[in-house]
């Protein structure tokens, strides 16, 4: 297939902005191009113009599907086990030492594996009831999946390995039931989690948190958008509270870097030190 040109991508993001009020103009070009190409193959669009035509219409149902495909939802439980060790052994104990209720925001939670990981970790620390969790994503369909907590059983293999690597107390299957190729997570773990639709590109800060996890989300943004979103996170954090990003992300090239201190460079945990 012919590769899509930058000018076409610009026309596409302009159209989506006009017709559907979502702004992908500052997404990273290289991966955005691949997503568009993938959608064209998936829905068998004969040409780029055919895709444009489809999006020009006001088919909201189709746009929801488009939104689900243009975003990348790949995730794991306990992704980067050493990161979860750092949370369990250092970050969370520090936050919990005051004996107050702490609040955590999972920004870009995808299908919820990260939220379940957090709930399990907290439960094993006997702290699940001391925490308020908000989990957000741009994609309503993936949030529905997160609420369901039903995953493909074959993914549980990787999840189980990660759990073992971070030295969880039990075996991961203590937290789910397997039936007909599906893993049903124990929903009581997340009964107090608030799942909400939230677009990091267009929305502002809505609450203050002690810990924000935004892992493997900003990698899909260009530097301009990363800077903008980091402002939202900065505003949404109490002073001396924490921001965790993906292990291959860095704040070095971000405008706001000087307001954060590196707590753990390997696991990419930062502390907000300046207002």
């Amino acid at each position, binding site marked *: 297939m012919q*590769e899509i040109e*930058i000018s076409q991508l610009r026309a596409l993001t302009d159209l989506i902005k006009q017709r559907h009020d979502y702004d992908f103009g500052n997404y*990273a*070009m*290289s*991966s955005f*191009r*691949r*997503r568009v190409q993938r959608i064209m193959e998936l829905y068998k669009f004969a040409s780029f113009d055919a895709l444009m035509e489809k999006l020009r219409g006001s088919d909201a149902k189709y746009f929801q599907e488009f939104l689900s495909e243009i975003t*990348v939802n*790949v*995730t794991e439980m306990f992704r*980067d086990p*050493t990161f979860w060790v750092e949370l369990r052994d250092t970050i969370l104990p520090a936050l919990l030492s005051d004996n107050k209720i702490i609040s955590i925001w999972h920004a870009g939670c995808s299908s919820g594996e990260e939220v379940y990981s957090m709930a399990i970790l907290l439960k094993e620390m006997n702290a699940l009831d001391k925490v308020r969790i908000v989990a957000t994503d741009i994609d309503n369909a993936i949030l529905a999946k997160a609420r369901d907590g039903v995953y493909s059983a074959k993914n549980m293999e*990787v999840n189980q*390995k*990660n759990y073992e690597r971070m030295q969880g107390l039990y075996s991961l299957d203590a937290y789910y039931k397997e039936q007909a190729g599906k893993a049903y997570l124990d929903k009581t773990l997340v009964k107090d989690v608030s799942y909400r639709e939230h677009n990091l590109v267009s929305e502002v800060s809505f609450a203050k948190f002690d810990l924000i996890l935004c892992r*493997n989300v*900003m*990698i*899909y943004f*260009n*530097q301009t958008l*990363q800077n903008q979103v980091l402002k939202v996170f900065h505003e949404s954090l109490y002073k001396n509270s924490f921001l965790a990003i*993906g*292990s*291959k*992300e*860095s704040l*070095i*090239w971000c405008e706001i870097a000087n307001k954060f201190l590196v707590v753990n460079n390997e696991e990419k945990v930062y502390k907000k030190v300046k207002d």
Partner: protein
Amino acid sequence: MHNRFQLDDHYRAIVIGGSAGSFQVISKILSALPTDFELPIAMCLHRLRHVRNGFVEALNIKSTITIKEPYDKEPIRKGNIYLAPANYHLGVEIGNSFALTTEELLNNSRPAIDILLASAAQVYGKRLVGILLSGANKDGALGMKRIKDRGGLTVIQDPKECLIDTMPTSAQKITTIDHSLDVQSIIDLLLELNYKVKNAKDI
């Protein structure tokens, strides 16, 4: 001496892909580069998805230049050698920086060679050199085609010399390969490239 391959002096970056049977090859190449090698090199080598550490260290034992796994949006700088990290796709982004992603596996791989090569071709066009080494699947073939389509230079390890030749021969099947070379000749080509690029700058 530096004219065996009749290379142009306009190249700005090199991308290398390799899989099964390529580790020794890449080690040998990296051990032969001068420490002031000018062009940035980005490598995508198939590797275990859930082992984050160890691979770059193993390559660094032999390499004359310290190889690093780039962060997302890290600027691409000359004189540096980069390796795609475990479990992330590595791409080149407009503005001359890297972009990492967690997209689905491609050709059963993450990192996938096609993603690095095709995205680099988009950004560098004819100023890119692509090198594809030994490997057991077809990852990288389409990427080589993208490089050729945009006017870049395509080089494969001579299939006769490859431990497993599926990767370079897959590329041969779908695009024009400018040079099919044994490892020593790939090294010679890189040295000639370095010489040309450096001298072009001095004029």
